[in-house]
């Protein structure tokens, strides 16, 4: 297939494409393929899959619209883009649900075959937007995707009804032409993915090629575009989502620690893909256990940890509620345990497929009693790999449950990832107890399970199987050193303080929070987790306007890095953007007594860079 064209090819620095259709139209797949071919071209990219909780809401309705937005650029980018430059709408509902996001002047590519009266009515249109002039602010391309797809598939003997299902590949072909994406990787992928069903493979191939040729020959488009490779650091790259990075990070951590990985989980959106990924990796010695409920998932993980494995459970908000009691037990037992919470909109069932920084205070305080746990929060999809290793290192070193807060945006979003040199990662030493650590006055060697390491304050980890180290631990308060049941008041306070000091002491080993400082800055924008991209892009824009802004982002939310107090006090103003009603800001205000301002959005979608920029301008715009 010729990739050249008679018409001119214009250079673009960046473009944001949004594919929208019915849940059953394959929009996620289409977006994902476009992303991969862009990654292979060497673009920087960031994606935002945006889909409903219903698997197949009634076709053609607004509730059933599924979208995938991808931002590609010839330079380093941080977000999936504030607004699409191109919206591909497979039906009226997709147009109606997304048009509000599309700025005037942008391009709409619509499947005109789907704009019949019935579909328009289902989408709630009283007149056809393609003919009533309501889209006059846009460049609209009406493409008969369904009928053209059916036409090319007919020759291959595919029934029209089946051929209709390949129309997303027509759209993919068309957009691939429009942005001069290479076609071979997608054709190869179709062959591999649908190889078992040659008719489907053939239909998809024909639809894809037809879409590509349509762009080339239909005289509709005056030009096509090229987004050149972004200047990446040298290295080998792949494209990765947060959930995949997290699963692979757990595999890496398991290897670094020499501990077999046990995952006890109950399916829950948007965390299930971690369970799926690890379930496929038996050759790594991973045991995955789909438990009867969330409680059993974390319970089994804790049981495995007692036995000397790397015990992990993965969940989302509702599951974290249910796991709370077991996490408290792990705090008391002082055993390593990894709890991954891929946050989603709450409360209750909330917004299962949407992102929200919903559970920070839950992770901090969601247990009875004084039960502190370290909290790790990755900032981008690929950083989920590092966060998993960090979490395991803390859990194993300090014999404590660690909560890793990802979210739906990180979990499903993709970005290019420079593959790490695995051999350069520092090993994690489980330092199992191997011999008695105490001698009784009568000379008998003894094992005391609650003797603490003077540096870390961690207790020994003594999995069953070693003679002489038999011991009993449990949820009742334990006597210092011996671990025997104790109701002694002084001992209880001492143990509460040991546990608190142990977690607080982790701060000593954490890297300082890095500040992207500007001389004269009077505002610090501080964030945690998945808001990193939007905050950084917003800060860049504010700086481009001449505003002096500093930025810092937390990878560890509990304990805070040691220099954080000095950092937040260094600037007259502190702005904390969060996808919640202000959870980190409460912690910062309480800890450091600074008047941090909260910027909040709780809509199940990430911040747009423009929203961050606006907030910065509002706070310090007058001081330009």
């Amino acid at each position, binding site marked *: 297939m010729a990739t050249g064209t008679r018409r001119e090819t214009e250079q673009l620095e960046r473009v944001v494409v949004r594919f929208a259709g019915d849940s059953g139209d394959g929009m996620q797949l289409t977006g994902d393929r476009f992303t991969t071919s862009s990654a292979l071209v060497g673009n920087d990219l960031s994606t935002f899959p945006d889909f409903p909780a219903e698997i197949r809401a009634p076709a053609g309705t607004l509730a059933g619209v599924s979208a995938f937005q991808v931002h590609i650029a010839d330079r380093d980018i941080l977000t999936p883009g504030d607004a699409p430059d191109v919206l591909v709408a497979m039906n009226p509902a997709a147009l109606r649900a997304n048009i509000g996001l599309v700025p005037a002047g942008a391009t709409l590519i619509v499947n005109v075959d789907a704009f019949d009266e019935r579909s328009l009515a289902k989408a709630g249109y009283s007149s056809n937007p393609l003919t009533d002039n309501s889209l006059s602010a846009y460049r609209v391309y009406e493409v008969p995707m369904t009928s053209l797809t059916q036409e090319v598939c007919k020759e291959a003997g595919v029934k029209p009804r089946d051929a209709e299902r390949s129309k997303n590949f027509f759209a993919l072909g068309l957009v691939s032409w429009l942005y001069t994406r290479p076609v071979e990787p997608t054709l190869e992928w179709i062959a591999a993915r649908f190889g078992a069903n040659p008719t489907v493979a053939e239909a998809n191939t024909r639809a894809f090629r037809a879409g590509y040729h349509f762009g080339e020959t239909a005289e509709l488009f005056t030009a096509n575009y090229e987004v050149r490779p972004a200047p990446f650091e040298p290295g080998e790259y792949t494209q990765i989502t947060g959930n995949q990075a997290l699963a692979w990070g757990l595999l890496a951590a398991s290897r670094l620690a020499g501990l077999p990985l*046990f995952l006890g989980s109950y399916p829950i959106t948007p965390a299930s893909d971690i369970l799926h990924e690890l379930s496929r990796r038996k050759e790594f010695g991973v045991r995955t256990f789909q*438990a009867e409920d969330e409680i059993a998932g974390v*319970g*089994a993980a804790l*049981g495995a940890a007692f036995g000397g494995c790397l015990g992990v459970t993965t969940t989302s908000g509702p599951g974290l509620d249910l796991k709370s009691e077991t996490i408290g037990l792990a705090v008391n037992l002082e055993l390593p345990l990894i709890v991954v919470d891929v946050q989603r909109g709450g409360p209750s069932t909330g917004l299962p497929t949407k992102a929200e920084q919903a559970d920070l205070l839950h992770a901090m305080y969601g247990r009875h009693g004084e039960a502190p746990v370290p909290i790790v929060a990755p900032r981008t999809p690929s950083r989920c790999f590092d966060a998993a290793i960090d979490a395991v290192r803390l859990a194993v070193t300090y014999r404590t449950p660690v909560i890793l807060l990802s979210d739906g945006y990180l979990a499903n979003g993709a970005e290019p990832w420079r593959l790490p040199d695995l051999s350069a990662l520092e090993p994690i030493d489980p330092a199992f107890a191997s011999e008695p650590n105490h001698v009784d006055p009568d000379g008998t060697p003894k094992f005391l399970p609650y003797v603490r390491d003077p540096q870390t304050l961690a207790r020994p980890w003594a999995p*069953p*199987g070693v003679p002489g180290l038999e011991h009993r631990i449990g949820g009742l308060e334990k006597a210092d050193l011996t671990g025997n049941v104790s109701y002694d008041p002084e001992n209880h306070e001492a143990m509460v303080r040991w546990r608190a000091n142990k977690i607080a002491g982790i701060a000593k080993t954490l890297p300082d929070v890095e500040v992207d400082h500007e001389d004269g800055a009077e505002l610090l924008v501080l964030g945690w987790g998945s808001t990193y991209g939007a905050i950084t892009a917003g800060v860049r824009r504010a700086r481009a306007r001449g505003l002096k802004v500093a930025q810092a982002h937390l990878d560890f939310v509990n304990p805070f890095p040691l220099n954080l107090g000095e950092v937040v006090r260094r600037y007259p103003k502190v702005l904390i953007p969060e996808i919640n009603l202000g959870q980190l800001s409460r912690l910062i205000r309480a800890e450091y007594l600074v008047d941090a301002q909260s910027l909040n959005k709780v809509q199940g979608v990430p911040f747009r860079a423009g929203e961050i920029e606006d907030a910065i301008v509002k706070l310090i715009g007058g001081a330009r």
Partner: protein
Amino acid sequence: MTAIPVTTRKDWASDQEVRWCPGCGDYSILAAVQMLMPELGVRRESTVFLSGIGCAARFPYYMNTYGLHSIHGRAPAIATGLATTRPDLDVWVVTGDGDALSIGGNHLIHALRRNVNMTILLFNNQIYGLTKGQYSPTSELSKITKSTPFGSLDTPFNPISLALGAEATFVARTHDMDRGHMQEIFRRAHDHKGAAFVEVYQNCNVYNDGAFEKITSRDARSSMLIPLVHGQPIRFGAEGERGVVQRPDGRLEIVDVAEVGEDALVVHDETRDDPGLAFALSRLAAGPYEPTPIGVFRAVERPEYGEEMSRQIVRAQERLGVGDLDALLRSGSTWTVE
């Protein structure tokens, strides 16, 4: 591995003072277990007792083995993680009627159906003891307790029926007044591959004294306990004068052997694949005031969960080699930036 050291009961008792109420049935169960352990041919360091919450759940503190006293109802779940990752260990779960059948009901049935390698001892005293006397899921209907001053409204669970319904591969019952019988049943349960479930009728002398007296007291036993012996006709009584027959409609009935003849009696077969007859036996007594079967109701072989889990790993490694993380990271589309 060195030879298993010879031990005595003393070696299996921890240095902790036992704190159950004086006269509690738990003492005799603890003694039975501690005395049995030296005979099982197992190592202390490879033995783990896990429990949830309740009076029974204090059991691990008194065993000089590895132990974990966890949270209410969750011991079978925690034990599942341990047993599946450490097949070298002997995993025991000690639980009670509230712990296993109320708050932990879900974990119990799933551990049983999966056939995870653990021995579950359920001390059934038909009352909540640790919280001082509320009715439990095995308390008889209309029971007057602190939380049911006008009588309880809940139909009780029959733990044996429940375990059979949950696809358990080993189901047995014993009682705290007969150490020999307890030890025989515990030994069988321990030796069973997979999840073994043992209901132990246990007297709470403070909040539910005498709950099982009508069947377990020395005088009553011969006429009220129906010993289940594999391969033998089911009969009981001082002279074996009574027995169990199956009617054409499937019902089991207790009859005088003299009337029907020994050949008419049901011959107990604990290995029957169909759990129907075992279930019928579990329903023979309406409560511990009618002749009640004790012993092993069911003991069948089925693949053990942890072993199957390990087998999947071995097979994957035979097929693909041991996982190579560098290769995995490169398993999708990759590109190189010079």
